[in-house]
């Protein structure tokens, strides 16, 4: 394991100190409890958005703090949900009187810790709504599982709900936009190589030289199947097939296509995958009207990628296009 770190125990604190130093124009960082907050928070009268979860998925969530997106991000230890204290502190720091939306990826730990924080915030008189993101079609959603996981689609929810809050929607409206985005999107990931959690010092799983994992989770959780390495186009076709069959995307639909890197895959390869995904959707009559390619929801140095498809309508498109000014997503200002 070769990592550009000092002490594994200090990874998160040192990284957020770097975030603070690099993006002082956008955000500031609180330590103990740790959270990252928009410089102008609390924005009076605006619904505030708070997200968070284990670290190691950067730029998620801290890279999306700023105008038109998150008001605060709460980074837990690497791959471990934060405790309620920093979530509560961040919630209090950003509440501008119009309530706070918690955007939570569907993992038992994240759900429970955010739930406790929300209860404590409500007890302090802050209105909190929560939306649980579960876009990963690799995992069967059934009564017999903890449900689908929240993965790369989270960035789409944060952007679009953030734009709704920024234009002045109330808490109910922002929450229902977030729910709608979550309902209309599906994702699936693939790993070519594993990642290594700093304090663990060994890979989260093993893959042979000619194997890949289809349906990988963003913490290296196993996926649907392990197969032999294939050409990029076949891998994309597989993944896209699972996505399109899960939510009945139909010919004539307009979609946002996100090809997300897991952290260790070069951009040149992501574009090769994007090319095939766009081509295949065109063949199916599905129109790609908005796009995003790059490392947005990562898994440390894992090599691999995920595809997310979000069905768009005029409102979602308008909210996607609305100005955003964060360190990792920026346009319109």
């Amino acid at each position, binding site marked *: 394991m070769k990592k550009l770190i000092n002490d594994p125990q200090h990874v998160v604190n040192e990284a957020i100190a770097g975030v603070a130093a690099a993006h002082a124009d956008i955000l500031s960082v609180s330590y103990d409890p740790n959270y990252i907050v928009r410089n102008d928070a609390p924005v009076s009268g605006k619904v505030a958005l708070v997200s968070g979860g284990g670290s190691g998925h950067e730029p998620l969530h801290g890279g999306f703090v700023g105008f038109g997106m998150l008001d605060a991000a709460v980074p*837990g*230890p690497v*791959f*471990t*949900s*934060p*405790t*309620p*204290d920093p979530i509560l502190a961040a919630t209090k720091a950003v509440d501008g009187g119009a309530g706070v939306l918690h955007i939570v990826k569907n*993992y*038992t*730990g994240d759900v*429970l*810790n955010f*739930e*406790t924080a929300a209860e404590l915030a409500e007890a302090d008189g802050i209105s909190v709504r929560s939306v649980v993101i579960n876009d990963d079609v690799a*995992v*069967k959603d059934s009564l*017999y*599982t*903890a449900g689908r*996981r929240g993965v790369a689609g989270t960035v789409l929810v944060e952007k679009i709900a953030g734009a709704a809050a920024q234009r002045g929607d109330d808490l109910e409206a922002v929450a229902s936009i977030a729910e709608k985005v979550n309902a209309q999107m599906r994702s699936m990931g693939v790993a070519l190589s594993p990642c290594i*959690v700093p*304090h*663990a010092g060994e890979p*989260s799983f093993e893959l042979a030289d000619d194997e890949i994992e289809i349906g990988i*989770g963003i*913490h*290296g*959780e*196993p996926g649907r199947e392990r197969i032999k390495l294939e050409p990029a186009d076949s891998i994309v076709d597989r993944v896209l097939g699972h996505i399109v069959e899960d939510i009945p995307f139909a010919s004539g639909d307009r979609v946002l296509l996100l090809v997300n890197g897991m952290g260790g895959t070069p951009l040149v390869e992501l574009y090769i995958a994007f090319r095939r995904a766009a081509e295949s959707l065109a063949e199916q009559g599905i129109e790609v009207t908005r796009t995003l390619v790059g490392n947005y929801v990562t898994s440390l140095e894992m090599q691999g990628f995920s595809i997310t498809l979000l069905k768009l309508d005029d409102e979602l498109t308008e909210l996607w296009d609305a100005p955003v000014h964060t360190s990792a997503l920026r346009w319109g200002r």
Partner: protein
Amino acid sequence: MGLTSEWARAWVIESVRVIAENRMELTALDRPIGDGDHGENMNRGFTAVMPKLDDLSDGTPADVFKLVAMTLISTVGGAAGPLYGTAYLKAAGAVAGRDELDGEAIVALYTAARDGIVLRGKAEVGEKTMIDAWTPAVDAATEAHAAGKTELAILLAAAEAAENGAVATEPLIARKGRASYLGERAIGHRDPGAQSSALLLRAAADVADG
């Protein structure tokens, strides 16, 4: 003669020790069917309990459990933090105001802890979670108490049942937590949370024994 706050403290101190001692093993159990951090998480929490316990000069058993609850909630994170936190919080509530815990109180303590975990995590027996250690422990404690056993015997019965329960998670398919994503591939692996629960319940008996 019931168990005092001395016992409660000793239990916590022993818990800190056994969790540290078994940290790597718990993380190793979490690797194939989870995300490989359960030992790290638990150890972070119990390590943080120690200095706070030193500060708590005296108090009832409930005070000790409440302190553990608040510390775990604010330091463990992940799934285990809120689950164990709620367990200790509800346990504290069940014995509030008492200086000594008799057999009945011990049954109430364990029952409340288990119910707290279910309240938060909604797991049933057989879903390959820490509940598969706690529910047999509660049942064994209830039975031992009904049979008129001593406090020590009740704790020992619960510890043994929890250990058996943890082992019994091995053939199960998981339906809660991260392991549920694996379907049949979870078979053959012991649940890390059930294992840490068994360690904690054994510690409770060990310090009463001494």
